[in-house]
């Protein structure tokens, strides 16, 4: 048992990221409310970001700022590359969330609800043709 716990705590960052990822995934799959689905998606994405950032961490390392002291005295510093990658990925995730939220707003205007099951029910009943255009005869 102790051996097992030690094994878990040695790599606790990976366990946290997997747990968060699964929580997010559960939100996406199980929630009917579209906003909650988006929240789930965000947790899912953030879990992967945390994984990347924990990759860059160095035990006892400082922030990766180019400085005389760090170079001369041989201080350890964190790997900055995963941080840069994740800055880009955060931008992507914000953009995804923005598009998703705007879709939800449009759906709310259209159907008056943000519960997915109700939207499916309502959209199944509407006629296909004339979605946006008028017949021209």
């Amino acid at each position: 048992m102790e051996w097992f716990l030690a094994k878990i705590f040695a790599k606790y960052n990976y366990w946290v990221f997997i747990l968060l990822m699964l929580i997010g995934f559960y939100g996406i799959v199980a929630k009917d409310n579209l906003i909650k689905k988006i929240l789930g998606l965000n947790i899912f994405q953030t879990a992967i970001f945390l994984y990347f950032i924990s990759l860059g961490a160095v035990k006892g390392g400082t922030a990766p700022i180019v400085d005389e002291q760090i170079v001369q005295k041989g201080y350890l510093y964190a790997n900055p590359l995963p941080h840069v990658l994740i800055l880009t990925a955060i931008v992507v995730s914000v953009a995804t969330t923005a598009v998703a939220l705007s879709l939800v707003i449009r759906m709310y205007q259209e159907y008056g609800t943000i519960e997915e099951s109700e939207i499916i029910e309502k959209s199944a009943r509407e006629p296909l043709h004339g979605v946006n255009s008028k017949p021209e005869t």
Partner: protein
Amino acid sequence: MVSLVEHLPLLIVVLSLLSAITILIAGWIHRRTAWFISLGTLIFQFISSFFILEHVLTRGPIRYRLGGWVPPWGIEYVMDALNSYVLIILLFLALICLLYSKKNIEHELPEKVVSFYTIYQLLITGLCGIIVTGDIFNMYVFIEIASLSAYALIASRGKIALRASFTYLVLGSIGACFFLLGIGFLYAITGSLNMHDLSLLLPPFYKNRVVIAAFAFILVGLSIKMALFPLHTWLPDAHAFAPSEISAMLSGIIIEVATYAFIRVAFSVFTPHFLRLFPILEILSWLAAIAILFGSVLAITQRNLKRMLAYSSVANMGYIILALGLSMSSTTSPWGGLNPALMHILNHALMKGCLFLVAGGFIYKADLWNIDQFYQLGKKMPYTCAAFVIAALSMIGVPPSVGFVSKLYIILASIEARQFFFVAVLLLSSLLNLIYFWRVIETMYMKTQGEEGHGPSSYSKHEIPMGMLIPIWILSSLCILMGIFWLAKIPMPILDRVNLLFGLFQKP
């Protein structure tokens, strides 16, 4: 001239991005300019993609270092035979869809013309970026740019399209996250993100569980993007309710670019040597066989023409993946290596592009969505329907069309791999294709009255405008011409170069 060509990979991406911004500003002043700016950019991109291909074939791959940073630290754009081939297909179809969209978008989305072309250019930026990049994280960013633009374009019709777009968004984001996680695993074990560098660093770790997990995550993530069965569930609605030119782009090239991304990762980052260690390609080809049958059978049950074509896309992705799965088992023959898969990427873009544009023509003219409303269309819109028939026959596989060539090559490849079950699947799927396309053709030409009892409104001709008819006819005539080119083996040198690149092709 040579030095200019070496800058084209970057220019193609950057110009497209700049033109998106220009369209937004110029369109704000005068909205008619939007289409012309988009057209100018795409024509430039299309022509320069030929220069790139010529350069790659005569002088070898182009490596462009962004900002002068030396790889593996800097981002690198690499053009080789595989990219330049896919790039030409992408830009050709984008150009055709753009020509078509002038009339169609003014009719369908009159208030959103400027934003449509802005996002359209962003979509092209993303797709070009996926193709030209030689850096795996850069590829992830471009995949997301392309996908985000696609979500917005699908939703542009409103109502039911919103739900389709939302489903695609959720699934697509999960797929992209898996891809990112795979990249993270690769980075954790090698510390590099450059594809060429990765392919050199990875071989000692091929048996490592982290590398295997990375490959699995990337495979699943990209399978969502390329709508491989059983991860295709977002596809039918998204294809059916998007504006027709976007359906054509989605089906004809966007899922194929995801396939390209998979080929790039599987063959360039992980080498064929890695693929031989595990039964990855076998599993993929069995999944593809199921996809072919499943897509074809569900296509038969659809009433909505665009949904039917969407399920047919699921089946056609099956063809491409099946050809990909067989790529390692035969190497020396003309149907060996990646040839059939790459052929079908082009052929599917031509056929499905044409079919979706025709379906859009029916919606444009008479708001017809369901197949049982198509009675008398053969008389009302003779040219459009004729183009549909040519493309449909090509899908079924009538010689000498492109569909015939693809199927012939995939069948020959499966015979050489001694996989006779796949031969049976391919022949059966041709039969199923015949059933679902014949149903449409029969209604268009032979039925005089709909099932609901409405009489035909008029027998007079009611053709769609020339601006839409010409792109349709370019595609449908290419369905035949390209088939003859393939049979004459004219574009084969390009494909041979691709196989050489991955060490899949040894000349005897």
